[in-house]
Every structure is written in structure tokens, then in C-alpha cells.
């Protein structure tokens, strides 16, 4: 029930993001969602793509540091309080969110959120008990 996210370590040099996206383009890899963490010395580009294993291979071959992390993608009611409700389910069970980012599906106009937590199994259990829709890997790659 988790999906694979690629994290790419990017030094603060101009042109690096362009290089990465160019490689993905050349290999016909589609980006579903992305976020960037930026610090003074480096950035971390996190992406959800339609073919994470292939993306990892081609980026590694090009000399990038890439890792795969299992994250959870959930559907969120696209209205005020939709996300707040879900965050409360998690915080009530003491599950801290390391980071998260949102994206919208072009098919059904729904809102989705990627969350990264310490313990995926525990978070999935809490979300399922509260009937939060969880995206499967297959679904997100097909979008």
C-alpha cells in the first residue's frame, strides 16, 4: 500500500534540476508529483514517477545520488478541513509526519497528499481505520 518515491541529492549548482528533468524526459518518464527541500548547501528533490525503478537506474547512471523511499499517498476531500481531519487522526496516534506534499489528479480532479512517516505500517493502519482513501502504487503509476 506504499508507493516508491525517488529522492535525488542535488548540490546547489545551477543547471542540476534541468539535467535531472532532461534525463527523465529522454527516458520517457512521467512525473506525477514533486517537492524540493532546500538548504544552504544542498537540495533534495523528491519525485513520484510512473516508473520509479527505471528512473532510479537512469539517474544513477548519470552520476546522481538517488534513493527510493516508501511513502503513503492518500486522497483528501478537496474542501476546508479535509486535510486537517487526516492530520488529526495521525497526531492522535503520535505519528509524526517527516514531510508531505500535495498534487491534483487530472482525471478526477481529486486532491492527493504524499506523506512520509517513520512507521508506514502503523500509519496505514490508522488511516485505514478512519476510512481515508489510500492510493495503490498501480493506481498512481497509471494516472
Amino acid at each position, binding site marked *: 500500500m506504499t508507493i516508491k*518515491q525517488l*529522492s535525488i*541529492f542535488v*548540490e546547489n549548482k545551477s543547471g542540476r534540476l534541468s539535467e535531472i528533468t532532461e534525463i527523465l524526459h529522454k527516458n520517457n518518464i512521467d512525473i506525477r508529483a514533486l517537492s524540493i*527541500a532546500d*538548504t544552504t*548547501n*544542498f537540495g*533534495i528533490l*523528491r519525485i513520484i514517477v510512473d516508473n520509479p525503478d527505471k528512473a532510479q537506474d537512469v539517474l*544513477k547512471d548519470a*552520476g*546522481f*545520488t538517488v*534513493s527510493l*523511499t516508501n511513502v503513503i499517498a492518500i486522497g483528501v476531500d478537496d474542501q476546508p478541513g479535509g486535510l486537517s481531519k487526516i492530520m488529526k487522526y495521525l497526531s492522535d496516534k503520535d505519528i509524526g509526519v*517527516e*514531510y508531505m506534499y500535495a498534487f491534483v489528479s487530472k482525471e478526477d480532479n481529486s486532491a492527493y497528499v504524499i506523506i*512520509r512517516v517513520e512507521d508506514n505500517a502503523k500509519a496505514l493502519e490508522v488511516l485505514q481505520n478512519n476510512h481515508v482513501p489510500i492510493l495503490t502504487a498501480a493506481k498512481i503509476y497509471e494516472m
Partner: protein
Amino acid sequence: MPEKYWNSMETAPLHEIRALQSLRLSQTVRHAYNNISFYKKKFDEMGLTPDDIQSIDDLHKLPFTYKQDLRDNYPYGLFAVPQDQIVRIHASSGTTGKQTVVGYTANDLVTWSDCCARALTAAGGDSSDYVHVSYGYGLFTGGMGLHYGAERIKATVIPASVGNTQRQIQVIRDFGSSLICCTPSYAIVLGETMRDMGISTSELKLKAGIFGAEPWTEEMRHKIESLLNIKAYDIYGLSEVMGPGVSFECSEQTGMHVNEDHFIPEIINPETGEVLPDGEQGELVFTAITKEALPLLRYRTRDIASLSRKKCSCGRTLIKMTKPAGRTDDMLIIRGVNVFPSQIESVLLNLGMAPHYQLIIDRVNNLDVMEVLVEMNQDMEFDAVRLVEKTEARIKAAIDSTLGISAKVHLVSPKTIERSEGKSKRVVDKRKLHD
């Protein structure tokens, strides 16, 4: 398996070694005085004559020779024989100023090959081996030195030189390389690349490696031994004295036997020049006593080591020197604290990280600051900033407590720290730019 030696000199009784050294020293001093105007002038100024040097007990009377003397006499001023007897030239990379040029007669090359043959034999090598030489070939002495040594023991030489790591690994696997010679940092690169290529050490015939040309630590030895599943031997040398093979390690792996029938080692106090007793650490000094082309007297290596006559389990009687702790000119003084780059290497290996790092020293507001760049491992978790910072903090804490000074630590992508000829560029001292 009984210990193998290349020749009987390695196990000769001490009095025989000393007698031979005394004879060769007096001959060499005469040769240098008669044929090198630099030495004649020096001797004359000091009121010294070749007759004053009868045995190795007179060694301390001789003047020191410095790297600067080679530069001042660039390129051939210190050669003791005419050009028609010189059959080979090598030169050391001149990172600061002119290159230092060294020459060899045909006999010198035989001596050198013998020294490397001893090192290869001590590492278990013989005519049944495939010796893969991944030192750079060219003016640098590393490649040719081990190459000729391997031919001397009638092994099969694979002169791979440096670069194209994936192809090297293919060669090691397909050609059945059983002994490898390269810098320790390149051995790590080979091991890691092999792992990335999905090649297991069980597919290889490698059994041992001879590593030198840069200082390395015990931790690095363990890392190489486990990565490549081999026994890792140290070798020491410098082009001014001969090249690799001035000293070499045996199965005991507790220091390197000096080929003292060719090179007399001394340890001195680098400040005062006073000779120190065995066991004490100081600057290593060599007198070459069989070289025809470039017989340097009391050459200051700037390497910090100590000597020991303790009986070695391998049976060799040749004196042993410790792994150089660093070079007097590699030693950084940061906020008054002595720092050797090899200390950072130990810290990283102890933390289970690869020893790919670079020190950047700068002076900000009259205060020295040290920044350490460390290459990330592919298996490091880094998708959250917190995880990267946690790793940096862990390295910083270990460096701060080992060195006693505070460093800034930054992780960088793998393979982004500059490497040249298999030697990594360990230190960028920006303070020098301001002076």
C-alpha cells in the same frame, strides 16, 4: 605456508648487513664527491673528505639533502654519471613549483626491480601470478616500478595503468588478476565500483594487493581487505630515493622492512637534525648506497615514522619502519593544533563510511576554519533534510572529539571530490592564497 624470500639478503645476520652498508656507504660517498659538484662543494665547505666516512657510524657527519636541492639543480644537476649511462628518467609531480627529476642507470633499474621483487614475493607473489598494475605509468614511478618488479619474479604483468574503472574490473575478472598494485584510495574505488556492477569477489582470483604512494591507515586496510576479499600489503618509496620498494610489508603486516642493503634509514628530529634512537618518531631520512645515477646522501623525506629492530615473525632481519603517520608538509596546523588528513580518514572508516573526503582550510576574521566535505554513500538515507543533518552531525562530533578542533561537515554527492592519477586531493588550504 612457509615464508618466501626473493633473496638471501633479506634474512642476513645484522653484522653482515652492517658490514655491507659500511662498504657501500664509503664507496657511494666517494662516487658522489667525485662526480657531483653540489656534494663536492658542500663537503669542501664543511671540511669533510670522503676518507672521513669509513663506516655507517660516520653517517651522521654527512650533510642532509633536501627536495629543494633537486629543484635548484633542475633537471640533471645532481646526476653522478654522464647521459650515455642514464637509461631512464622519472619525475615527481611538482604540485609546488618545479618537478623533481630522477635518473637511473641500467644497474639502478636492476636494483629497483629487485626491491619490488622482494615486495611482491613477500605478498605471496611468484611466477604463477597475474600482477595487475593500476598505478599510473609515465613519469610517476609507481607503474613502472611494480611492473619491472613483477617481470623480475617472472609473473605475468597486466599493465592496466589508471582510469576506466569498469574496464579494469572486467580485466581483473576475465584475465584472472591475482595480485593488484595501486593506490589505497583507488583500491576502494575499484571495490565500490565492483559492488555497483554487481560483481562478487568470488568471481575473481585476487588474493592480495600492494598499496602505496599515499598515506593510509589501518582502518583503510580493513576496508580494502573486506571490500576486495584480499590481504592488503603496504609498500613505501619515493622517486628521489628510488621509487616504490624502498620498503615493503611482510605477512606480519606490522610495518615495512627497509631494503637496507640499498637504502640506509635514519630517524631525525626535523627541527634540530639530531638522530633519534630506534622506536622514536621523527622524520625519515634515507641514504641510497647502491645508486649510480642519483646517489642522494641523507635525503630528507619529510615523512614521519619510526624504526624498529624487533624480531619479525616472517624471518626477515631487515629493519622495519612504521607506516608514515603523515608528512611534515602534509601536517596542517589549524588553530595551533597539528592535523594530519589521515586522521579524518580514520574517523570516517570508523563510522562505516567511505574514505572519500576533502579538507578545506580557510582563514576568516583571523581565525582558521576547517570544512570537511564527505562523499555520501549510495545506501545512506537522505530523503529528509533532518537525516542528512544527522549524518553530518555524527561525523562532526567524531572529528571534533578526535582532533580536538571543531569542523564544519558537509555531505556531497559521490565521486564529486577531485581525483587525479588515483590520488585524491585531500587538502585545499586557502590560507596560502591570502599570504
